[in-house]
């Protein structure tokens, strides 16, 4: 769409001197050159000729910036374990991406930030005690299978980080469900290092946890799923900048709240409160950073509402009636599978469309 004026080669030629002029190949005569010979070479392109400053790398780096509060807290609570997992995951993702670029013979896509995001998000969903080898494996799987097997950036159906996590969950079920207290909590009166997550505690032992812990992050869980406030800060930044569709986290959280609220209302002793459901587990991280992944979520407004609502409903079903205490990953992956269909069937009515 942008092509240099064919006559542009003429002014450049006059700059060469002496020997190089003889050696320089004469450009083929462009038959169009007979029509005109403007003095100034001009760029020809189809309209529009203006553009906002948003580019794909800009969006990706903004998402990374939004993840900084959560990452910082992960480092504070889990210290060296967090450092190891985050570094391994991110570097494996970048190396895998680079290798795939080389194999495909395309330009390096490291600087667009998408591989970094996948590595970082995967790290934030892992338990702090998970092995570094497993982390690297999961990260490579996420990039190679989750992203490039489908065709690369823009073509994947499933959220690559979540696909990596699903792979690890299936391959290493026990280490992936072994949790520990944050190191800061160790200095309080806590027995031992391993402990169940608040969701696990409720499901399997009917023990409720304090809500303040869920907000500040002083609880056990994966690296990123601890502090709701940190996630919210980053998430709201993305919504304001319009780098994430606000309808997805809104409908996701709202449907979780309403569906779990209905069950809690029917039987408060059996089911946890809706506030607990919204704040615990990977829901906050999933709603603001995983479900809002642009490539795997619908493009239309109505589609976004359907996506979030469906994910919320599936999540509550898994949490209350499924085998696992946590289901954000599966609920989002299942809705990702529906996205192409949702995109097709939520075509908005054209301006002035007369209903058939």
């Amino acid at each position, binding site marked *: *769409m*942008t092509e240099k*004026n064919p006559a542009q080669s003429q002014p450049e030629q006059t700059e060469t001197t002496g020997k190089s002029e003889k050696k320089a190949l004469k450009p083929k005569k462009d038959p169009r050159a007979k*029509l*005109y010979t*403007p003095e*100034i070479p*001009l*760029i*020809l*392109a*189809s*309209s*529009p*000729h*203006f*553009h*906002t400053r*948003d*580019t*794909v790398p*800009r*969006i990706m780096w903004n998402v990374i910036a939004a993840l900084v509060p959560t990452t910082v807290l992960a480092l504070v609570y889990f210290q060296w374990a967090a450092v190891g997992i985050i570094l391994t995951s991110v570097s494996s993702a970048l190396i895998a991406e680079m290798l795939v670029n080389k194999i495909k013979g395309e330009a390096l896509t490291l600087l*667009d930030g998408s591989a970094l995001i996948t590595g970082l998000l995967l790290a934030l969903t892992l338990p702090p005690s998970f092995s570094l080898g497993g982390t690297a494996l999961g990260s490579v799987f996420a990039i190679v299978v989750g992203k490039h097997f489908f065709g*690369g*950036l*823009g*073509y994947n159906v499933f959220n690559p980080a979540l696909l990596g996590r699903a792979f690890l969950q299936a391959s290493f079920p026990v280490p992936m469900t072994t949790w520990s207290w944050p190191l800061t909590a160790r200095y309080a009166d806590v027995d031992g290092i391993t402990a169940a997550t608040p969701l696990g505690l409720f499901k399997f032992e009917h023990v409720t946890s304090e809500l303040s812990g869920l907000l500040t992050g002083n609880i056990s869980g994966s690296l990123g799923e601890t502090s709701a406030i940190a996630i919210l800060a980053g998430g709201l930044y993305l919504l304001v900048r*319009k780098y994430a*569709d606000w309808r997805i986290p809104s409908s996701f959280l709202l449907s979780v709240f309403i569906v779990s609220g209905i069950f809690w209302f029917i039987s408060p002793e059996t089911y946890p409160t809706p506030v607990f459901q919204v704040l615990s587990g990977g829901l906050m991280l999933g709603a603001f950073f995983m479900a809002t992944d*642009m*490539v*795997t*979520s*619908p*493009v*239309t*407004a109505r589609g*976004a509402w359907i996506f979030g609502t469906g994910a919320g409903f599936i999540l509550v079903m898994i949490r209350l009636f499924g085998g696992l205490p946590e289901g954000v990953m599966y609920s989002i992956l299942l809705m990702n599978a529906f996205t192409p269909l949702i*995109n097709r069937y939520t*075509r*908005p*009515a*054209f*301006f*002035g*469309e*007369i209903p058939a």
Partner: protein
Amino acid sequence: MSESASFQISTFRRGVHPDEYKNLTCQHPSRPLQLPDEVFIPLQQHIGAPCEALVQKGDQVKTGQKIGDSPAHVSSPIHASITGTVAAVADFPHPLGGKVPMIHIKQDGEQDVWEILSIPDNWETSSKEELAKLVREAGIVGLGGAAFPTHVKLAPPVHKPIDHFILNGCECEPFLTCDHRNMLEQTDRILTGMAIKMKILGVEKGIVGIEVNKADAIAAMEARVKVLHLNFKIQPLKVKYPQGAEKMLIDAALGRKVPAGGLPMDVGVVVNNVATALAVYEAVVEGKPLIQRMLTVTGDAIQSPTNLIARMGTPFQVCVDACGGLKDETSQVFMGGPMMGLVQYDLQVPILKATSGIVCLQSSQLKNTRHYPCIQCGTCVSVCPMNLVPTRLSRLAETGKYEDCQNWGIFNCIECGSCAFVCPSSIPLVQWIRVGKVKSAEQQQKLKTRA
């Protein structure tokens, strides 16, 4: 709704807000360009049937003399814009690319002898048909850019009753300020032109839509409307692109949505540009055919950007030189604004009736742009004023699924450029949609001839 000026600012849904760059030219008065030595008048400067030349090489022509006409209804005559001799009737470079038949007139001597139209003494007592005929004879077409013959627009079929006339003073494209300056400098004439048009249509309700970044124009129009005792409503509009598009303007001003595939007359409205209203005044009251217009010569590659009043057919180079010439390092020149403008490779092309501006940019916003695949971000969907899904349309066009293109509404696209403006992957969405439209139409044609 009260008939006096409304202070409520309306708008339409979606759209974008590019940087305006209007302060390069909107503060200074316009100036007339001195008569060019030669002009090139294309035989087709309007939507509809092209004209046939009425003169040949060697003929002497006066300013305003009719030099081309067509018997078709949807057509408009062309007139000589300078006094001189016809040097040739041949193919010359055209702003739309390629070469088309044009009448080349060279000035002989410094004269400017006019041949004016025969006009009534008082237009207010003339009949609709007389006035419409005069509008046709003057060669007036839509000067907002579409160049649709005005006399056809002002005579809609009987089964489409019209109740509102909207004057388009929005000028939503960045850089362009000719409509703005016209509204400030020719206020009375524009309003009278609007009144003439409303008489031809037989309509009593008139609205003038102006974006709020032209506050002085809004104030001037409001003041003169009161003095002239016209009951037009001046509607301030939010500054958003593409507010000046007909369908968006009707939606913002009246809340009516033109049906998909339809025209403004389907909702009882006719829309015209302020410059067209001015041309109608000049034709009906002063007998001048359409042979000159105001255009904005601007951009960061022009030494002194200005609004010029130039004769039709003046080469772009003459206009650019009159504004101090191009700076070195010019990278793009286009006719029109940056959102829908046509790029030019040759400054010898002439000004058309539809030319509202020549924009010359040093720093192209398109250089060194890395292209990415579509990341399904949905920003294009959230800005498309026609409610389409540009990413899908472009992908369908790219993969040759032309029937699906129609189902997804490709023909409703007004090619405003909002989608490609925001695309973070820099995908040429509008270009793909244009390809899709052409190919879909071809395919439709093939199916028809086969059946």
